[in-house]
């Protein structure tokens, strides 16, 4: 318990300065590192002949999609042809077409769902040029979309920013420098970083074992920092080569929590700065009020934190309770359910990592989620279904704002005003787009899951019968649609059916949402700002935090409760009540 509290306290201390730094990057304010980075960036702008004019939401979305599309095609080619290309000391063959489709979508959409095993399925060239490259660019794309979105909501300008500028600034100013430092720390902890072929070693038992090698540390750090989650090896962060010590575990934990939280702070500060500017315009004396969070950002951060802590508590308690059937069989469960967990992490760090990786939609794992207790496993599943508990880089905030729109709509009416958020009216168009985002997510998860359980191609992949099998299926598509990428594992998923359906879930889960959300930001930006009085609904106080949490739970519960009842809840009941 104490270690969880301490870990989260340190997180709070870290996320605030990073959030402020990120705000300075997004708003092009001065930072200490400008002298270096301005030169680097200017070089890139010149080299790529980037037009740095502001874009409207349509242009922004189009440039984002086109840039992503180019990367998808290039990456697909490399995966297919990796057998013929260089940097392939282990002689790995080209990847099969549906698996390549799944993999490339998976990495471009920041999902990192892996239907392959890195050590046997990818050459070092693919690992670096496709996997690591996309881990940077997909994270930067999500961040860029979020910044454009925040600018739209903050208002006070005509455009939502320049996509290329956003993408480059975040990459050079945060992703690359932090990755270098974090990567070196991981190497210090024992994570390998080389291009040598796999080693074959004679063990003390006299048997031979292959030790997988490669540029692991470089991938490992951006995998977390960019909330990507795709492991270098099949076993992801459970293996000592990816995550050797409790220290490396903490580095990975913090690096995945850092930027999604920082995005919320950036959002809050943008809104705050705009408001301050308006106030100063009216007041004769310009008083700059400093704010750590910005009150609007604080509400959203608090609501996310409440959801996170509730999930974490459920996961921790049910994992600590252990498995009653094993207890009856005479296995001591005092340590909790240690099946599938690493002894060096224990229950607390495993529960924390599990909740974090699915809340912040990273998808990396330091224990096997398939072996979590039913309710312990329901938490990661639920958080991917919610997809707004901090969420992936940037997109989590955008998803949460969809729930905010919903909450504001109901609350606004209930105080007798037509609903507004941040001074802009929520009308038919915004509602239509928000409803679209809220429909797509369950449609992908439940729709594909239903397809899987009624088709033989889908049923073949289910390795566990009964309720647990349904949980596996739900998990796979939740992970895909939420662009999380963690695997429940235990699913025989490298088949045409699973590769294609999961690929589609990832694709639509990412791009429909982003485009619709940018459209909302664009329409909010174009709206006339309303005056704020004491009669206006306040969205920056405790009441609203609670209402927001309720709205998220009620909507998610109403949507996913029947499926969860037949999956983890039924499993839990059979486990504990028979």
């Amino acid at each position, binding site marked *: 318990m104490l270690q969880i509290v301490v870990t989260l306290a340190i997180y709070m201390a870290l996320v605030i300065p990073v959030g402020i730094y990120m705000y300075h990057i997004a708003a092009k304010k001065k930072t200490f590192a400008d002298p270096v980075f301005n030169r680097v960036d200017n070089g890139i702008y010149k080299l790529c002949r980037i037009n740095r004019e502001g874009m409207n939401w349509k242009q922004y979305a189009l440039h984002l999609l086109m840039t992503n599309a180019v990367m998808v095609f290039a990456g697909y080619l490399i995966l297919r042809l990796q057998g013929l290309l260089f940097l392939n000391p282990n002689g790995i063959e080209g990847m099969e077409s549906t698996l390549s489709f799944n993999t490339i979508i998976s990495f471009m959409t920041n999902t990192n769902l892996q239907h392959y095993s890195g050590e046997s399925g990818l050459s070092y060239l693919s690992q670096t040029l496709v996997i690591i490259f996309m881990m940077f660019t997909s994270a930067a794309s999500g961040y860029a979309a979020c910044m454009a979105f925040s600018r739209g909501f903050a208002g006070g300008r005509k455009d939502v920013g320049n996509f290329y500028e956003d993408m480059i600034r975040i990459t050079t100013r945060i992703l690359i420098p932090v990755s270098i430092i974090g990567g070196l720390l991981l190497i210090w902890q024992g994570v390998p970083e080389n291009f040598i072929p796999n080693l074959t070693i004679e063990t003390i038992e006299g048997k031979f074992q292959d030790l997988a090698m490669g540029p692991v540390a470089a991938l490992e750090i951006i995998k977390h920092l960019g909330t990507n989650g795709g492991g270098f090896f099949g076993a992801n962060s459970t293996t000592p080569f990816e995550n050797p010590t409790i220290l490396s575990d903490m580095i990975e934990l913090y690096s995945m929590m850092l930027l999604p939280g920082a995005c919320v702070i950036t959002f809050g500060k943008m809104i705050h700065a705009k408001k301050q500017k308006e106030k100063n315009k009216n007041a004769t004396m310009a008083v700059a009020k400093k704010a750590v969070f910005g009150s609007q950002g604080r509400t959203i951060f608090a609501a996310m934190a409440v959801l996170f802590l509730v999930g974490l508590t459920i996961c921790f308690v049910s994992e600590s309770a252990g498995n009653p059937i094993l207890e009856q069989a005479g296995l001591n469960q005092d340590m909790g359910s240690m099946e599938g967990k690493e002894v060096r992490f224990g229950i607390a760090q495993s529960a924390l990592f599990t909740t974090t990786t699915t809340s912040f939609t990273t998808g990396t794992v330091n224990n096997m989620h398939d072996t979590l207790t039913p309710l312990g496993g329901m938490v990661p599943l639920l958080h991917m279904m919610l997809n707004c508990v901090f969420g992936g880089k940037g997109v989590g905030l955008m998803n949460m704002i969809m729930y905010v729109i*919903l909450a504001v*709509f*109901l*609350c*606004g*009416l*209930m*105080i*007798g*005003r*037509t*609903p507004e958020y941040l*001074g802009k009216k*929520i*009308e*038919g168009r*915004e*509602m*239509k787009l928000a*409803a*679209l985002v*809220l*429909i797509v997510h*369950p*449609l992908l998860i*439940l*729709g594909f*899951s*239903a397809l899987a*359980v*009624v088709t033989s191609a889908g049923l073949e992949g289910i390795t566990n019968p*009964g309720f647990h099998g*349904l949980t596996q299926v739900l998990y796979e598509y939740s992970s895909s649609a939420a662009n999380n990428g963690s695997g429940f594992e235990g699913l025989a998923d490298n088949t045409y059916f699973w590769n294609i359906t999961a690929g589609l879930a990832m694709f639509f889960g990412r791009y429909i949402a982003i485009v619709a959300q940018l459209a909302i930001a664009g329409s909010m930006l174009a709206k*006339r*700002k*309303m*005056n704020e009085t*004491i*009669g*206006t*609904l*306040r969205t920056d*106080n405790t*009441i609203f935090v609670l*209402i927001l949490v*309720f709205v998220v739970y*009620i909507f998610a*519960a*109403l*949507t996913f*409760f*029947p*499926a969860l*009842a*037949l999956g983890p809840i*039924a499993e839990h*009941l*059979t486990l504990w*009540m*028979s």
Partner: protein
Amino acid sequence: MSKKNTRTKFITKDILRSSVKGAFWKLSPKYMMKNPVMFVVEIGFFITVFLTIAPGIFGGDSNRIYNGLVALILFITVLFANFAESVAEGRGKAQADSLKKTKKDTKAHLLMKNGEEKEINASELKKGDIVIVRINEVIPNDGEVIEGVASVDESAITGESAPVTREAGGDFSSVTGGTTVVSDWLKIRITSEPGKSFLDKMIALVEGASRQKTPNEIALNTLLVGLTIIFLIVAVTLYCFADYSGVAIPVATMIALLVCLIPTTIGGLLSAIGIAGMDRVTRFNVIAMSGKAVEACGDVDTMILDKTGTITYGNRLAADFIPVKGKSKEDLVDYSVMTSLCDGTPEGKSVVELGNAEGTRIVPEAASQMQFIEFTAQTKMSGVDLKDGTEIRKGAYDAIKNYVVDNGGEVPKDLEGIITKISGLGGTPLVVCVDNVIYGVIYLKDTVKPGLVERFERLREIGIKTIMCTGDNPLTAATIAKEAGVDGFIAECKPEDKIKEIKKEQSEGKIVAMTGDGTNDAPALAQADVGLAMNSGTSAAKEAANMVDLDSDPTKILEVVEIGKQLLITRGSLTTFSVANDVAKYFAIIPAMFTMVLPQMNILNIMNLQTPSSAILSALIFNAIIIPCLIPIAMKGVKYKPMRSEKMLLKNMGIYGAGGIIVPFIGIKIIDMIVAPLLGIIGL
């Protein structure tokens, strides 16, 4: 002011009869399509009817009686929703019918170009035609008086029985079709096309025929459709998941689940709420030109109010007696009262009233002993002559001064000072003299209507700013503004100042409401987000405004704003209630579906419902009867009292959010206790 309509029962026998008929008429799928939520229910009804006729149509065998019961409940659900809408429309129709009675086919005397008169039907009149209307004739269409002065009985439209004067030129030149000339004659230029008169518009509006969905209704409808789609996905996929888990769920049960989850409560009541909101405004004798205008009322940030008529009575009333040096106040009070005993003007009456309050020794009977001298424009004074020849006068300062001096009296030295002081405060001084001796001054001032101060206070609490417009000088304006407690004022206000102020407020993102009557107000009324024109005003003002007050009482804007807010609150509260209901329905239906295969699932049956089919039917019955139970709230609107937004949010969330979660648990349990034994009898 007519209150005759405001206190009627919300449902009468006539309305009930027509509503029941309407509920069946609206079952037509073509009509139902407009309401996607209820349309889904209707489709569910058709499917279950099929299943009742052919239970095996989707494979497997399902219980015919059970299917039939589900079909029946779904049918009733749709009927209830249609009924709610019909009731709302019925209330409007009842009012429209009484209006239609006034719209008899009247004859008009068309004045031809050559000066001849020709009798034609009113419906043949075109815009620009000139007609002549004589005593006891009905004015054939809306128009402008171009010649003549006459009393017009407008009770058909306003409910006000006292006739009003209409004359050519100025602010009283507009006449409305359907009203009757009760004295003299009028020459009128027709200003509206046939079928588009004010009366026609009013009938269409209260009937709901020209009702368009408001932006907020569209947004809410989108949300409801979104929820319906989500629950459609949930229900269809659950069928597959259950199948995978080895549970065969009857199709009728799936439909029951779907109908319970989709927001039928608000879906069934949404249009009724909108119509009822308009209707509440109408009952207030205010005609709203669109639902959008009523909605905008809820958002008003600033109200621009005319001083005269809205904030004050417009008449100057006695506020104080100020004696000059050397004269006692008692004497002044007595003489003042004496001059006013026979004075029927509001000023005179108020002097007597104030005198009584000050304890005058003069009794009303004394009037018979005096001869009353009326006010004329020449003398600028009024008063009484006593039997002993004493002349008591009150009047304007100059008039009395001359009168006293002419009669050989002296003007007290401090009089000028008193006069200046009163004028400075925005008051009117009336000097009182007896023969050639000046006793003092009656301080007349504009009086703020009672209750307004508290009302402005309440408005401030909910964030609405009030600005007073007046033609008075800044000093006078400031005095009244302070007294009334408005937040700001514009003194020496010209019509273009109003527009300027409205535009300024709007540029700050504020929603502005204003009232007006004169032609000069028309542009400002058009510029304002909510413009309430007085029916007594010019037709230009009425055209420009989005609401017309038939009683011509400008204070009503305050109530209209509250009605607008109430409309939005009702909508939000019932939506929240409807969505919150789903929690309990899940706890009824999910265990009922799965306990057969997974007995442990019964732990979720926290209501301890007796049998699975009773649980499902109880939830479905609850879902149906909650609609008529909420019709009164939808019609009357939820209670609204101005309070801080946070407090109001907590209150409504408590009642409709938390209540929405708890009520169905109790309701479903009670229904189950009744239904389960009945189902046992028929073997379910």
